[in-house]
């Protein structure tokens, strides 16, 4: 366990977490107006309608995969009678399909962004940075999925990355376990942390306000003038009248 390990796997995760939570709160407090998908569908629909669902649905499966892989301990799946081989087969299958559709999806979206004049014009530096990190995370993630399937202890993330990830929550990071993981996993984790850290400051924040409440609210929303005027905290000069 070197100092670098401690910094990377013991300190950095908490820094990332602080940035993610703090950044999100800050943005919600001060930049609700900027909190949007900034959709470019108005300019171009044809490619978007292929690329965007491919990317987003792929990503949803990927997220579910991460939750299962990271949060459910190996002992539980063992107890449920799922063999290591069996687990890996399904992880490989689902992971590869989801990963590739995500990658193809974002590929289409980036191609569209680059080639459709108005969409390219509407791309900010912030967006470009976000795309770099996002694509890196997806590529590295796909690599780990494939590697994980190749067997070998160092590639069995459920013995290295997952225990470390869970240990973070009880504030006793299992740095030892993480340092045993392969380089691909290290890389993917680092990029993942970078992605989490930039998340609140990019347009990716829209994911945090996925409108699930739509399923439960009445169709027609009424607001009275008083409550309607200030969904953000009133600022100086904008006191409610």
């Amino acid at each position: 366990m070197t100092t670098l390990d401690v910094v990377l796997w013991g300190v950095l995760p908490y820094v990332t977490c602080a940035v993610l939570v703090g950044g999100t709160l800050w943005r919600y407090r001060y930049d609700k107006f900027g909190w949007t998908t900034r959709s470019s569908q108005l300019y171009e629909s044809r490619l978007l309608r292929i690329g965007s669902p491919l990317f987003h649905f792929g990503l949803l499966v990927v997220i579910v995969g991460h939750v299962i892989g990271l949060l459910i301990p190996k002992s539980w799946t063992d107890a449920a009678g799922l063999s290591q081989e069996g687990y890996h087969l399904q992880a490989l299958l689902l992971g590869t399909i989801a990963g590739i559709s995500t990658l193809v999806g974002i590929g289409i979206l980036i191609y569209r962004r680059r080639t459709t004049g108005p969409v390219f014009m509407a791309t900010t530096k912030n967006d470009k940075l976000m795309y770099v990190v996002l694509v890196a995370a997806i590529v590295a993630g796909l690599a780990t999925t494939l590697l994980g399937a190749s067997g070998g202890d160092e590639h069995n993330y459920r013995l290295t990355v997952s225990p470390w990830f869970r240990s973070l929550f009880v504030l006793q990071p299992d740095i030892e376990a993480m340092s045993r993981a392969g380089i691909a996993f290290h890389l993917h984790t680092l990029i993942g942390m970078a992605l989490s850290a930039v998340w609140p400051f990019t347009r990716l924040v829209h994911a945090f306000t996925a409108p699930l409440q739509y399923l439960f609210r009445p169709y027609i929303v009424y607001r009275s003038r008083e409550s309607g005027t200030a969904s953000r905290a009133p600022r100086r000069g904008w006191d409610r009248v």
Partner: protein
Amino acid sequence: MKVMAQMGMVMNLDKCIGCHTCSVTCKQAWTNRGGVEYVWFNNVETRPGQGYPRRYQDQDQWRGGWVRTKRGRLRLRAGGRFRKLLSIFANPVLPNIKDYYEPWTYDYETLTNAPLGDDFPVAQPKSLLSGKPMSVEWSANWDDDLGGAPEHGESDPIVERIRRESEDKIRFEYERAFMFYLPRICEHCLNPSCVASCPSGAMYKRVEDGIVLVDQDQCRGWRMCVTGCPYKKVYFNHRTGKAEKCTLCYPRVEVGLPTVCSETCVGRLRYLGLFLYDADRVTAAASVADEKELYQAQLDLLLDPDDPEVIAAARRDGIAEDWLDAARRSPVYKLAKVYKVALPLHPEFRTMPMVWYVPPLSPVVDRLVETGHDGEDVGNLFGAIDALRIPIEYLAELFTAGDPEPVRTVLQKLAAMRSYMRDVTLGRPANDAVAEAAGMTGAEILEMYRLLAIAKYEERYVIPTAYEGQAHELEEIGCSLDVDGGPGMGGSGPFGEASGRPAPVSVETFHALRQRQTSDDLVDPGERGATVNLLNWDGKGRPAGLFPPSRTDHPAPIGTTEPETRP
């Protein structure tokens, strides 16, 4: 019974001369910004014509509004909640910018910078979206005054529908053509499908006055409302990534002023006032089985503000006395419900629209006069109304889901008024038989005439001033903007165009307009707080005067005095 108040509008189409003043002033007030260059909260379209955005009325294509299911319930035509969430990553029926039009500017610089030569320099059109040269091929009002109608007129969804019934009912040959103008704003519907479509719950109907608004802080740019509105009156600001729509000029209405479009209307054809309606029965009324009954169902929702029962219920539901008084004097209630000469636009969309139209008699009158008849004779007019079935069917498709009867009745009333008033004006004995032929009395005709023809400002706009006591506070708010970050000062926030503190556009516009209207001098760009005309600014670059000059970098030019610091 739950009584609610609704600010409504009536437009008298006979008076619309298609000058587009309402559109221009609305644009200047509300959408003179980047990202909404293509947006017209108010637009005036020539009918027959495709409208703006192109063919918006064709709900088979655009899937706006509500449909009634077999079980008699209302469903959003574009799909219910689950469908919406599943298609949230790419809205399957969002209009493309080209369906509105690609906004452009001209490369004026070549005009001023071109070297001396034999050729005239040309200002090329340039897209405001991509910055590339473009050829201008479509825009709002491309088919104004039936321009290109032989070619484009066929694409009018209503023409298509009428044609389906009979081959040559509508003609675009010059001698047989007819046309009128249709100014359109958001209908501030009682059953707004845009609100129902918003997954974030950012759109809402105001309890007090029924104005439908978008909460800019809560909108996340899912763009379902654009699809949901069958009138296509919610627009997507492509820079901020938020939906925007006509606000019924609520900052003005709140202080008792008419909307900008009404105030500036050259023909004085707009009326503003209150409706009282029964909120409990809205859904039932919007779900009646027969589309042709929707107009009547909508009329039945409107409550009589003179009825003691209604007054008692309204008081119970917290409607203020001066609002009740305004409802009693409401010109829109009179035109829609008492005289029944105003009709809702496309009731078959089942959103219960609250902007009503007095259909135009002029195509009928024009035809009579052209053919050498007396256009004010009631017999001629009544005969022509029936003979000229085409305009009536067309109007019926617009206003009564295809039922010609109510349109015919309205036109007969207007014709009777015309004829009756000629006698009065010429000092001849008034002919009450004319009034009766249209099912009215002479006194009613006189009253209606007064409202339609000579009503003054206060009679056309009866806007309750419940907020009056707060008006000066609203102004205070404006002043504080100088210190509070200042709207419009930032342009781009750290996260791109959309981020940073919101510039409350109403306040920004309020100040800009007040300055423009109250100062006699041209702005000296060196002066603190000098402004540029945002209407002419395409959002690119920083024209001089957009920001106050930094005092250290640019000392005041010799000869001008340093302006005194304002308190």
